[in-house]
């Protein structure tokens, strides 16, 4: 005998599933706002080279520190460059570096965490103590060291950021794995004699994927802040490449009389971070990982 609930819930392919999740995310105002902001920034990063009204590195002594006007919407900076142009271009490097950085963090942090959670015992102990040791090092000092030794190219920044932001993911992935491995389907796979790799791939990853992805999304926004801090300190991207962190750093001394050149990059950076945070929260809720469950009564 068939029940109606089952027939309604036919199997969906992956694309439909992803679309369903997006739809759920957009159904709440906070999720919709977050998604819109992130989408806006991504599109902007893609098309900004074609719509930028000026050359971002064109220095002009005639147009130094002009206030916003019809010609220069966000004014100009101390070297006479158009702030609007530099702001819309300023997210490109940050987004690329942190996106790939987060992917690397997710990959190594997630896999190591799952592995430690599964094998346990001495290997787990040793690895987790090493991770703890790394957690105790102030990341920004370590990053400064790496950058001053190896340079500030994106080839260095992406793996370095990915490494430092993956440590936290190790812990989350390990905890999520611990929840799953006590279940009988893992015991069953073990008793059948599947290898550790096969158990990780087939049985564990589908069940911890969501938790790790949500954590990765949260890490992305933190990494964005971290990357901008590096630029602010002068260790991120090198001038004249437009970057929010760098722009804030350059303009902060002139804040008292040329506020426009610092406000635009701040708005750009903080809106993106808020957007990612909102999206990550909505993502978590859409996947059913809700951290604010209420008591039943």
């Amino acid at each position: 005998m068939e029940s109606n609930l089952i027939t309604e819930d036919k199997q969906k392919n992956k694309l439909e599933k992803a679309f369903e999740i997006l739809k759920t995310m957009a159904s709440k105002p906070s999720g919709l706002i977050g998604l819109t902001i992130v989408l806006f920034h991504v599109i902007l990063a893609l098309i900004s080279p074609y719509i930028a009204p000026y050359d971002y590195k064109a220095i002009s002594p005639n147009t130094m520190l002009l206030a916003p006007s019809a010609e220069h919407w966000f004014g100009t900076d101390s070297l006479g460059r158009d702030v609007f142009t530099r702001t819309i271009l300023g997210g490109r490097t940050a987004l690329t570096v942190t996106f790939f950085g987060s992917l690397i963090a997710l990959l190594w942090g997630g896999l190591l965490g799952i592995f430690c959670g599964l094998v346990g015992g001495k290997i787990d102990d040793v690895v987790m103590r090493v991770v703890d040791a790394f957690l105790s090092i102030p990341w920004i000092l370590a990053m400064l060291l790496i950058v001053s030794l190896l340079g500030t190219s994106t080839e260095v920044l992406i793996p370095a950021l990915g490494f430092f932001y993956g440590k936290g993911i190790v812990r989350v992935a390990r905890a999520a794995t611990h929840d799953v491995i006590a279940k009988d389907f893992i015991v069953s796979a073990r008793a059948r004699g599947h290898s550790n790799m096969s158990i990780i791939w087939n049985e564990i990853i589908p069940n911890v994927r969501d938790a790790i992805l949500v954590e990765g999304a949260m890490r992305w926004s933190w990494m964005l802040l971290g990357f901008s801090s590096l630029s602010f300190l002068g260790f991120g991207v090198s001038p004249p490449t437009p970057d929010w962190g760098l722009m804030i750093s350059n303009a902060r001394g002139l804040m008292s009389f040329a506020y426009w050149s610092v406000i635009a990059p701040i708005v750009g950076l903080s809106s993106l971070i808020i957007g990612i945070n909102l999206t990550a929260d909505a993502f978590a809720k859409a996947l059913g990982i809700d951290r604010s469950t209420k008591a039943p009564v």
Partner: protein
Amino acid sequence: MNEIIESVKNLSIGFNSQKGKQISILRNVSTNIKKGETVGIVGESGSGKSTLALAMMGYIKQGLFPLKGECLFKSEDLLKMSSRQLEKIRGRKIAMIPQNAGQALTPNLKIGYQIDEALRLHTDLNKTERDKKISELLNKVRLPSPETMAFRYPHELSGGQQQRVAVAMALAGKPDLLLLDEPTTGLDVTTQAHVLELLRFIAKDTGTSMIYVSHDLGAIAQVSDRIVVMYAGEIVLEGPARKILKEPIHPYTYGLLKSIPKLSLAGLPASMPGSQPQPGSINEGCSFYDRCNLATDHCKKNSPDLEHIKELDTNVRCFNHKELINQNNNLQTSITKKSNNSEAKEVLKLKDVSISYAKQKFFDQLLNKISDQNPTVKDINIDIKKGETIALVGESGSGKSTILKSIAGLLKTKDGQIKFENDRILSSDLKMRNSNDLRAIQLIFQNPDESLNPNHTVEQILSQPLKLYFNLSGEELKKNIIDLLKKVRLGEFYMSRYPRQLSGGEKQRVAVARAFAAKPDIILCDEVTSALDVSVQAAVLNLLQQLKEDLGTTYVFVSHDLAVVRAISDRVAVLYQGRLCEIGPSQNVYKFPSHPYTEVLLGAVLEPDPDIKPKLVAEDIVEEKPPEKGCSFQGRCPRKIGNICNSEVPPWQIGENGNAIRCHINIEELASLQQ
């Protein structure tokens, strides 16, 4: 006595589906609870019995809301009251005892404090009066040494004792109505019998009305005066307990009673086909139509009303109930199973197996040995023949699952050997076993919700063992999966389903199919039916038996339920604290003489018959560790003969009924004692 204290009138409770449709979980339920009466509400999971019981104390689960009807407690409608008014009634007038007392008690507050809290809320006693009342209550629920018990934490008590504390808390406010939601479901058989006995005593002693909700007709039969049978959100049968259990005139109750395995009966119980309809899927006609063998075309179109039968004092919702009135002698039918041939070869041999959970000391870890003088499981010797079903029986902590795990290679043995086919020793380390040995032994777990990966389709689940052991792929893999599904009577369309889209019975069928995918020689069944509803349980047992007869598989069947064991097994081994007490052919283990522990277990079995009362011979204390020396059952044995039981391990004796018993009492003497 005939004063009605709560009455439910035409109550319907439901929820709004995602598509905005109104779906009811309870449909037009009406019943009355009289003063001093115990009413048992029985039904399978999803029948709405808990929703009804909770509504009777004015509580409706989140997401649900009352559609119509009322719940009158002393002529006040509970469903219309404000939470302030309800606060005054709950605890003082209506109290509840939850299913799992271990989770309902706050873990970091002492028992006495928690009862005191209930007294402060619901009575006007002062401090000294309350202290006196606490030990009075603890005494009433027959907890040992009530004075010191008040200073204990919940985790220091056993499950049965925690349940007693919950009863004491519920009694604190002297309620008129006590609501019990599956209060003995998680408990061991002996403990369960004791708690039920206590409840019956309290009902008589205090005159409290009780509503007892359970899926277990055995437990219901022991406590209830009147029984309400629920099916798909409706009351289908309601009447005096004796009438309902002995002369059920609704086909659902009739089938349900028939599908319960009974101690007095060898062979498998008859199973009921199908499963309960999902809420909202019934549009017209009788909700039991699909599974009923009395159904006619009339039942398909028209839904029957609850009809009062005067001579039986029973309400029934069936057009054809008259056909069942004189049929009740058939309640005791069973399907006989083929007995296996006793000449068969031995396939698995456990020789002096001991298993320890003790943590290895550092030095022992280096030498890779376990030094534990008092291991959890000790000296297990069992020979298992090909095609046989051997059952391991015992209460929780008896080591039955532990033995199963070490056969599967999931737990290392401390001493002894596990030999497989032709006396070849199986390594106790899973990684050292070869692929063929791994294939030969498969496991089926208790809870199919946990043993199936929720993110895999049935196809993916079944392809795991097929890929691993036989390297199948493509069309061949698919063909094999369809064959497997057919074997467990599931259609091809189940392949794309996820476990959450299946019912409990269907899930367990998939788990059975996965075990059989490996073409195993031995299947280890760990409480495979205890998470299932009775009617589904019978179907799964029948399926297992059928598959065994077709494929010649050997089962090692672990269960705490003696009646289920009796139904399916050829041989039974009774375990207590990881030591064997008795082993023998299943039809004989249930005959005396038997080991005193077996006697205790048999006495505590609850039959769905008000005339068979459990015999409570031993205390329901829980021992945490097996005794260092002597007989394993010395702590609770009602027939203990003296010091010899404490100091010497009893010898094996073989009775005339063919089962081996490990006891100091001479077997003939035991036989005459148990007459």
